[in-house]
């Protein structure tokens, strides 16, 4: 939520953007001053800043493991995008999903979450002049699998009532099938 409010404000206000990108100015802010600053920006940013303060957060609308079994015709271009920049892929999906459903910008927010799995851990024990990999010693390490989850959040309850999970999934499926970065 906060991220989208910041993006919206930064898109329309150059001065605000400068505060965000300059580390010294950004770190000089604290919670309440940042909140106040955000409330002085676009109507959307103001609304989100207030909602966060009042603990009126977006509602979870969908949580689905991102697997080809569920999203069968996923485009290679989408996977390339996720690989290169997961956050940007989620942002583009957010924009496309709202547009496809005829909703205002950021009525729905998409997130792509990757669980972290260590790629390779070498332990000190040396064999044949090479370090030994922990995965060769531990079944637990060998069985760790990365999971990617697609989450969709909705700004209003009313929207959730009018939109079935199936409609949401179908729309996402359509977008993922014919993916383009913009």
């Amino acid at each position, binding site marked *: 939520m906060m991220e989208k409010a910041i993006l919206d404000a930064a898109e329309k206000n150059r001065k605000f953007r400068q505060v965000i990108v300059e580390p010294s100015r950004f770190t000089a802010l604290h919670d309440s001053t940042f909140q106040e600053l955000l409330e002085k920006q676009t109507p959307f940013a103001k609304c989100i800043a207030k909602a966060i303060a009042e603990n009126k957060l977006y509602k979870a609308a969908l949580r689905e493991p991102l697997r080809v079994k569920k999203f069968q015709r996923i485009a290679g271009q989408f996977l390339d995008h996720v690989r290169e920049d997961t956050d940007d892929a989620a942002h583009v999906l957010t924009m496309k999903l709202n547009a496809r459903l005829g909703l205002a910008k950021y009525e729905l927010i998409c997130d792509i979450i990757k669980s972290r799995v260590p790629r390779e851990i070498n332990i000190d024990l040396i064999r044949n002049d090479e370090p030994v990999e922990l995965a060769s010693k531990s079944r637990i390490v060998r069985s760790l*699998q990365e999971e990617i989850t697609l989450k969709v959040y909705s700004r209003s309850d009313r929207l959730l009532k009018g939109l079935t999970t199936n409609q949401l999934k179908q729309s996402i499926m359509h977008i993922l099938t014919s993916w383009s970065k913009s």
Partner: protein
Amino acid sequence: MRRSDVSLLLLLFHLNDGAIKGRKRIQKLVFLLKKQSGIPFGFDFKPYFYGPYSEGLADTIQLFTSIGLLKERVVALDSGFAQYSYTLTPEAKKLITKSKIRVPRNFRKEVTVLSKMGTNELVRASKRIISDTSYLTPGNSPTRLTTT
């Protein structure tokens, strides 16, 4: 627009009868296809102790496993290494069949040639190329090991 790395990589597995044994083998196959055969993979490679290695490629294999395009099998070897094998899932096979991937002209031929080579042979060939192409510049030296 460059071809999708994802499509090319899926095709590589497909042309290897749907399975490749060993992370090291995948790395060297892709490297040789890119540098020796001119297949337009976008992955960047750096020199490591077992020859060229691409973090981007390793991440992509991880992504394929996570979303269910590849099935990963890990076996602990007596040598102290873990061997990772990857097999295309039925969903990935369907995706390859359905999607119209444009196959680079010499791709099939080059994959057939490289697939007949053992992993050690691939490592040697990759190391020859990487040393010829002056990758070993200051700040670009081998810093870690890759495993099978």
